[in-house]
């Protein structure tokens, strides 16, 4: 079987990342090749979300099944994470990120989402969420 690889990226990447997925398909992981551009794209989504989020942090790595992934850490206002609004608001934020960023389609990474309220982060003081 012949593997059809996408063309090598143009621009300032030293080399392109290709990953072999579990089902033997080859994906071009643009987010790994262009981390700065990916960061800019995330920043734009963060701005679009406005006061619905305090900030968005993330790690580019691999998921538990070995596929390229982005693990988002999203700090949200306390008022957005009250019992009645928790599911709706977290779903909405993750949807906007997926819709705007298109992590799988454009960047070759599976998105995963975690959420924390501003007061929880103040208490926990975890640098990777700051």
């Amino acid at each position, binding site marked *: 079987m012949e593997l059809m690889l996408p063309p090598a990226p143009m621009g300032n990447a030293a080399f392109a990342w290709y990953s072999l997925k579990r089902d033997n398909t080859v994906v071009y992981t643009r987010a790994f090749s262009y981390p700065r551009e990916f960061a800019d794209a995330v920043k734009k989504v963060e701005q679009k979300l406005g006061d619905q989020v305090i900030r968005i942090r993330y790690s580019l790595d691999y998921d538990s099944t070995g596929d390229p992934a982005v693990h988002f850490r999203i700090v949200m206002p306390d008022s957005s994470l009250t019992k009645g609004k928790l*599911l709706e608001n977290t779903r909405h934020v993750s949807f906007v990120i997926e819709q705007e960023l298109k992590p799988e389609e454009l960047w070759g990474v599976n998105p995963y989402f975690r959420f924390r309220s501003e007061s929880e982060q103040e208490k926990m003081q975890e640098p990777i969420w700051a």
Partner: protein
Amino acid sequence: MAFADELLDLARRIAALDGENPQQASLRRAISTAYYALFHLVIGEATANWSQSELRPLLGRVFEHGKMKQACSRVSGVQSEIPPFEKRLTPEDHLRAVAKTFIQAQEQRENADYDVALQWSRQDVEAQIESVADAFRSWIAIRDQPDAQEFLVLLLGPKQRRRPA
């Protein structure tokens, strides 16, 4: 109460332990238990189709986490928006909610069980649990639909999806 429902209920109770200062161990167990609630929900539904009930537990052991995740990622439109439960108008909407939640829950379970560097907050955990509870509601809404029944078979990880006649 079915086993999957018991697990979901247990996840909620574990997440609520320890008052204002939840222990990381409790939060991690809650995340893991919520994933297993959904895992056993769909396996229980799939094996219930097997007519000899004494063989259902053995059949359930055939399911594999990785293949189930792959099947979920192949559900059509799994990357699209999941509307709130009340606005899910089609079986496809509900199936997407189940599949997407399974993918997320499995990854968080791996992190909760194995990555000791990660810290969890209660609201993060509650969001994951409520997402699983929401997937339960969606599954119940479509469990007898043809697409849902086909999904159960695909969770076993056949190499090729059957082609329509």
